[in-house]
Each structure stands twice: as C-alpha cells, then as structure tokens.
C-alpha cells in the first residue's frame, strides 16, 4: 500500500493528473459511444452533433479567457466568424485544401487575438469587456463591408471538405471533427493544468501579486487571448465546412452571448462544462420549436421551484421566503408565457437572457460545479506527505550566493515620489548590505508602503534612483525587478484565493521553468523534470513556514495568520536576494506572531536580506540589524534598534512634539 502511494505520488502533477486518469475511462467510453453514434441517428442529428463538437472546441478556448483569466470576452463570436471567413475565402478563392485552411484560420485569429489583447495592458474588467465588444462590432462591420474579399451580405458558399481527393460526407466529417475535438480538449487540458494555466488563474486572483511574482500580467494575458482566439479560429473554420454557407449575420452579438451562456451554464474551469454547455445551446432551439415540449418544461420548472421552496422551508425554516420571490416570479412568467405564446422561436434570446440571469445568480459554477458540490475534487490531501520519499533539508536558495558586484545590495538615492502635491517620499536615501535586516518603522502615512511600491516597481519614482545588485531598477517593470531577485509580501493580502496553497507557491516558482509551451503540451522530459522539481520545491517552502499540511486547501480558506505565512512562502519561491515584508504581523494573534518571529529568524539564519515594515515593536526589535524611521517621507533616524528607540526625533514623531514626550524617551 505504501509502495502504491509512493508510486502514485511520483506522478508529478499530483492531484490533477490523478483526477484526469480517473476520468480517463469515462472519456474513453464517451469516445466509443460517439464513434458509434452515426450508425444510429439520421443526418440532421449528425449535423447537430458536429455543431455541438465545434461549439465545444470554441468553448475550450473561451474558457481560457473567461474561466481562467476571469475576463469577459464579447469578441468570440467575431473571432469565430473571422476563422470561418478565413477558411471560406482560402478554400473558394485560392482552392487551399481543407486541412491547410485550419492552421491558417488559427494563425489569422491568433493574430487578431493578440491585437485584441494589446489594450489589456492598461485595462481589465468592464473596460476590457467593452474593448472586446468594440472589436466584435468592428469585425462584423468589416466582414459586411469588405465585399471584394467576403462577398459582403451575400455570403460565401463552400464546397464539401476534401481529404486527399475524397469529398467528405456528413458522417465522415463528423469523425474528422470528433478527432479534432478530442485532440483540442486533450491539449487544452494539458495547457491548463500546467504552469500556464496557473499563471492565467493568478492574473484573475491578483494581478499585482502576479506581476510581483515574476508572472507578467501583460504577457500571460496576451498569451491567453492568443490561445483562445486561435481555438476560436479553428472552431470557426470547422463551422464553415459544416454549414457550407457563411454570411456576416451568422457571427453577430447573439452568437457571442450564446457562447458565454453555454460556458457559464456548463461550468467554467472544466473540460466537461463546455461539452454540456454546447449541447444545451445547440439543442435548446429544437426544444423551443416544439411548443408542447416547452410547456412540459415550464411545468417542470414551476413544480421544481415550488418543491425546492417547500423543502427548504420545511428543512431550514421560512425566514428566507423573500429570496424566493424572484425565482417564483420567473417560473410563473415562464408558465404563463408558455401557454400564451404559440411560437417560442422568436423568444429565443429572451430565454437565453433569462438563463444567463439564472446561471449568474443561482448556478454560479455551472452544471459541472453543481454536480461537484459537496464532493470536493480529489486533492493532494489524499496523499500523505510521508509518502514523499526523502525529506529534503529545508534550505533557501538564492540567485547569487556570492555577490557578483561589490558594494551594497540595495541603494536608494534621493528618491522623491509625489502624488499631485503630496510628497510621499521626500529625497529619501538609504543602503542595505547583503544579508542585512532592516526594520522600517514610522507613523501611518509616513511613506513606508510607498517605499515598498517604489522598490518593487509598482510606482515609478518622480526623481532619484534605486539600484539593486549594482543595477538600476527604478523605472523597470515589477516583473523584471521580481525576476532579478526582489520579492515582497503585501500589507493587504494579495493571495490567489481560488488556487490551492501549493499552487500559490508554484506561481512564485514560475521563473524556474525553462520549458516552453510545446514541451508542456507534449510532456517532453525537460518539462516533466521541471514540474517535478517545482512541486517538490514548493513543498519544501511550505514546510519552511509550517504550512506543509495545508498544501491542497484553497488559499482563501486558510486562517488569516496562515495566509500571511503563505505570502512569505510564495515570496521565498522567487529565490530572492532581498525580501520585503509589509506588515507581516498585522492582525495576527500573539501565538501567530510568535510563529512569525520564528520564521523570520529562520530566514535570517539563511542569510537573506530583509526589509521589514512593522508596527509591532517586539517583532522589529528582535529581528532587525538596523532600524530606519520614516516620517513625512523623510528618514528621521536610523541606526541600531536600541539607539533608535531612544532617539528624540522618533519619540516626537510618534507621540507628538512636547517636552513630556522627550522626557518620556529619557
């Protein structure tokens, strides 16, 4: 048994790999069933089946942007259209073979995905959603207007796809699409469980922290859009060979909405969700066409809502009756409209809209999330840590054990940081030697956190310069500064809340990978080696801060004190030469503070340089070699801890300037 555990543990992806293997059987059976399907059903349903597979392919890609990076893309209908038109134009105007048009479409849409992501450097959330909407609108206008290329509103008719001189029948095309569907799903799965998927998720969790962990938000957001767009292009080109006719109004805003509905209804961050969602949105119009079936559905919803209401009320009391008003009205409206209307087809979009509202508020994790509810996915806790072979000695690693350049590690000279009229840092200079621990104290608003943000590149100083390991870092991006060996934690925790504790640390270890995307997708040896090493290293770091037992918990479920420690572990994962800790003890209980002090001493023992902002004097005084006091953006005192404690100016800054204060100091 122990041997079995150990062997399974060698699977470098740990949890996710195992999870995938468990469902491997199901996917295999699904493949077999789908392969036999064309024998049983008529041509119309085969056509619908191909459409489901095509939509599912697109949704795999949409999930990268919407599920993982958490942005709303309203451009995927248009990207799908661009892919379809690329295939259509290439195969009608230049007679490219079918198989060659697929990568061409992917390349074209990948390019547009990159263009689309360019503003993503500056904007996110609703702004980015509007950017994608504007892009989609422009694309539709251009497809409509550029009739020399696209035939304008008349559309393009295609020949049946041709494979080595043989025109594919519907059922044969079904197999081609099915194969591409499984291949895409497989590769996307590998991408999303790798460091790339983790980086995408980190952008959503906390962009600032991602940047400061050496995971460039911009780079990975562009990458996510490019991958997502390329897959949309693939799906689009398959679509045009399935329909054999494409026109501009097939790729409108409604299509985008349909895709989004399918994804969030099926379930984000899952491979099964897109398939379910695609099946629902493709088959739903068939249900709406059949008014009788629709009425039964309305009855079902009505009874379901009523049943749930009564059951919940009986179980948990009737206090929450108010939250049932809207579902009740919704079900009633559905029931009435199903009897009043003879034809639901025209109301398709209203139904879609209502479904989106329903999913957003009552089924946030989609059908897949609902099915998984209460039954947590297999986690790493299933594999006891003792199974991890040889326990590695806990030791921090650093970029450069010996200083390559002589002189101070960090050199801040005459830094000024103004916000409008306020000078948050006013001509500040200081130095830090390798391995030195600097305690940074000062009243609130004295510029401590501003200094941190300047050092890590989040703010560009108004004037002055910062040198780290002999090189100028002021003006460089946070990512580059982080990768040079300067790590930090945040005063207001910036963890990647939806990710596990282990994955949080793995984000910090992203810099250790040399393997690229191809190696990741194909699981080439270097990638396998690096992934194993990173996971082992992450466990060592968690052990270092005392969180080894929590590796598979979601970070947001950790107690507050442990979240602070996790931030330290994540920062250490960068293998920094200098670690900045911004109020690590804030909000901690005294027991937790003791644990923190112990960890700080361990870090100190490893010879890592540290800047520590803290209000808890016992923490500062027990750890620091030097203490610097800031007030109004200036350094008012610095020296050994006990000297600073008795400095008159410091006491004045903290207690206000009076004679008594000075006496109190003496």
């Amino acid at each position, binding site marked *: 048994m122990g041997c079995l555990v150990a062997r399974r543990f060698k699977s470098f992806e740990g949890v996710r790999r195992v999870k995938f293997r468990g469902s491997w059987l199901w996917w295999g059976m699904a493949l077999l069933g789908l392969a036999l399907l064309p024998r049983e059903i008529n041509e119309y349903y085969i056509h619908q089946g191909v459409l489901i597979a095509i939509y599912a392919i697109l949704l795999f890609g949409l999930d990268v942007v919407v599920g993982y990076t*958490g942005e*709303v893309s*309203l451009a995927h209908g248009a990207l799908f259209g661009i892919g379809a038109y690329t295939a259509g134009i290439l195969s009608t105007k230049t007679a490219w073979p079918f198989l060659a048009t697929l990568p061409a479409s992917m390349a074209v849409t990948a390019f547009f995905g990159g263009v689309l992501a*360019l*503003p993503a*450097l*500056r*904007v996110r*959330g*609703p*702004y980015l*959603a*509007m*950017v994608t*909407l*504007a*892009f989609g*609108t*422009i694309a539709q*206008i*251009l497809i*409509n*207007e550029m009739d020399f290329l696209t035939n304008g509103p008349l559309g393009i008719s295609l020949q049946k796809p041709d494979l080595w001189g043989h025109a594919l029948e519907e059922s044969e095309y079904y197999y081609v699409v099915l194969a591409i569907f499984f291949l895409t799903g497989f590769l996307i799965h590998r991408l999303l469980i790798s460091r790339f998927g983790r980086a995408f998720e980190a952008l959503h969790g906390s962009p*600032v922290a991602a940047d400061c962990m050496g995971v460039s938000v911009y780079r990975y957001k562009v990458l996510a859009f490019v991958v997502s767009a390329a897959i949309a292009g693939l799906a689009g080109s398959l679509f045009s060979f399935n329909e054999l006719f494409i026109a501009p109004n097939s790729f409108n*805003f*409604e299509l985008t*909405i349909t895709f*989004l509905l399918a994804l*969030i209804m099926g379930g984000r961050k899952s491979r099964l969700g897109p398939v379910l969602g695609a099946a629902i949105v493709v088959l739903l119009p068939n249900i709406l066409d059949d008014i009788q079936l629709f009425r039964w559905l309305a009855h079902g919803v009505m009874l379901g809502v009523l049943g749930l209401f009564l059951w919940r009320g009986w179980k948990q009391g009737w206090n929450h009756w108010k939250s049932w008003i*809207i579902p009740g009205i919704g079900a009633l409206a559905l029931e009435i409209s199903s009897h009043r209307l003879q034809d639901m087809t*025209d*109301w*398709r*979009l*209203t139904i*879609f*809209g*209502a479904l*989106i*509202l329903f999913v*957003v*508020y009552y089924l*946030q994790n989609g059908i897949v999330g609902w099915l998984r509810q209460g039954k947590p996915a297999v986690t790493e806790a299933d594999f006891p840590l003792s199974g991890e072979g040889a326990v590695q000695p806990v030791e921090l690693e650093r970029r450069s054990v010996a200083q390559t350049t002589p002189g101070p590690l960090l050199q801040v000279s005459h830094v000024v940081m103004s*916000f409008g009229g306020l000078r948050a840092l006013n001509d500040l200079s200081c130095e830090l030697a390798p391995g030195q621990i600097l305690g940074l104290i000062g009243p609130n608003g004295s510029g401590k*956190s501003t200094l*941190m*943000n300047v050092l890590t590149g*989040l703010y560009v100083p108004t004037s002055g310069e910062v040198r780290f390991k002999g090189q100028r870092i002021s003006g460089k991006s946070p990512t580059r500064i982080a990768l040079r060996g300067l790590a930090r934690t*945040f*005063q*207001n925790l*910036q963890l990647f809340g939806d990710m596990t504790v282990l994955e949080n640390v793995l984000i910090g270890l992203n810099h250790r990978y040399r393997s690229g995307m191809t190696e990741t997708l194909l699981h080439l040896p270097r990638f396998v080696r690096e992934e194993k090493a990173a996971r082992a290293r992450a466990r060592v770091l968690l052990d270092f801060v005392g969180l080894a037992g929590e590796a598979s918990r979601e970070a947001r479920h950790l107690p507050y004190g442990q979240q602070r420690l996790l931030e330290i572990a994540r920062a250490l994962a960068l293998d920094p030469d200098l670690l900045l800790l911004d109020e690590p003890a804030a909000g901690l209980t005294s027991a937790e503070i003791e644990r923190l002090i112990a960890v700080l001493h361990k870090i100190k023992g490893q010879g890592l340089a540290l800047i520590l902002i803290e209000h808890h004097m016992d923490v500062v005084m027990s750890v620091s070699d030097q203490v610097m006091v800031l007030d109004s953006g200036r350094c008012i005192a610095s020296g050994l801890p006990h000297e600073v404690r008795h400095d008159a100016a410091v006491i004045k800054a903290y207690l206000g300037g009076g004679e008594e204060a000075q006496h109190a100091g003496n």
Partner: protein
Amino acid sequence: MNILTQLVLSGMALGMIYAVIAFGYQSTFATSGTLNFGQGEALMLGAMTGLSLTGEIMGGPYLNYWLMVPVVLVIGSLQGLVVEFLAVRPALRIHSEFGWIMSTIALGIIFRNVAENVWGRDDVPFPSPLPTTPVHILGANILPMELGVMVGALLLMGLMELFNRRTLYGKAVVATSSDRGAAGLMGIDTRAVIAFSYALSSLTAAFAGVLIAPITLTGASMGSVLGLKAFAVAIIGGLTSGMGAVVGGLILGIAETTTGFYFSTGYKDVPGLILLLLILAWKPNGLFGRAAVQKF
C-alpha cells in the same frame, strides 16, 4: 466648405446625443462602479415607447411630442430601477464584477428581444415635432430637429449639474461617488442612491432616444451600437468628467459624419470604435479623467 460645415453641425448634434448617454454611464459608474451594458437598449425603449405614444405604430397618436417626453422619462427611470434591482443589486451583494457585467448584458438582450416581438424587427421613421424643412446656418442646411437635439441635450446636462451642485439629494449622490463607505456611515442610504443613479441613467438614455429618433430611424436594434459608441465617448472624455463627455461626444459625432460622407456610411461606426480601442490602450482614464493612485 459648406458641406464640411454641414457635416460638423450634424456631427455636433449626434455628438450631443452621445454625450447625454455617456452622462448616464458616468452616473452609475460614480455611485457604484458599475456600468449598464444594456444602456443602448434603455435608449431604444425610450424611443419605442415615445413612438408608440406619438406615432401610429400602436394605434396612436395618443400624445403630442412635448407631452410624450415626460411620460417617456418616467418609464425610462422605471426601467433603470428594474435593471438595478435585477442585475446590479444582487451582483454588488456578492461582490461579483462578472455578475453585473453578464446580467446587465442579459437584461439588455431580453429588452431588445421583447421589443422585437412587440414592435417588430423593422426600422420605422419617427414623426418630427419640428418643421422638417432645413434652415440655413453658415451656409449649411440644418434640420431644426438637429438644433433641437443640441438644445435639449445641453438643457438636460445643465439640469443634472445643477441638481448635483445645488440640492441635498445631489450632494448625497456626489458623496456616495467619492466614498461609498463613508457616505453610508454618514447616514446616506447608498443603496437608494445607487438605485437612483440607475433611474437617472436610464432616464437620460430614454431622453436621448426620443431626441435622436426624429433624425434617424427607430427600431429594436437601434440601441446597441449607440450604446457602445456612447461608452466610447464616456471613455474618451473620462468616466469621471462631465466636460469630457461633451468634448468626447463632439469629437466622435463629427468623426462619424465626416467618415460617413467621405468614405462610406457602412464604415461610419468604425472611427469611434477604433478611437475607443486606442484611448483605452493609451490613456485609459480618458482625456479629462484623473487617474486614481492605486494602493497595494
């Protein structure tokens, strides 16, 4: 030369419409940090209900144009309250940005689809309340309604500024926009203020709808592109600057009429959208907006 003057004046009228809609975006963004992605549909509903009251489409006319406007404003603000209640409030409660983006989009397509089923899918003309013979200004032929649009838009924006500056309710709105938490602690019912801002936002959109309808066509799909371009205007000017909305509106309106004339009407929406992409890539706080310092 005359052509250019004419294009500029028409563009100004159009731009003022955009500015009015952009004001609506600004008001909800200020109080709650949210935007109604169905703002264009609020405009469309204003225009369509206006047409039902003054036109023959629903067996009317029931009211003349001037009496119709206040009715439309009331209906518009009710629609805003519905949006706030169904789409925004639940999302703010669960702190879900994805939630309000998706649910305002969903409500938008529901409104549009309902309008398609109630009023049909075709664009129809809207009877103009002012004479339709052009007047001559600076050698250009201008429709009186285009002047009416400018006057109406300025009037509405002026009233909103006055409301914000001079009344206690306006101060509550301003207080909520500058710090929702603190305003709440001072006894301001911030939820009511947010609901009010949505009512105001849809009201301005509905007003823009009845203003622009006589100089364009009215139909269920008229709103979506207008809403998007008005967002472009709000972004160009900066989501926090009223002056910016006017300037942004004028830039976009004039760019649009000139493109439509010198290139092709098919491309007239393109410059505004490209401008939106460029501004967001280059200066996301807009030409007049101020960047807030982010704290970490």
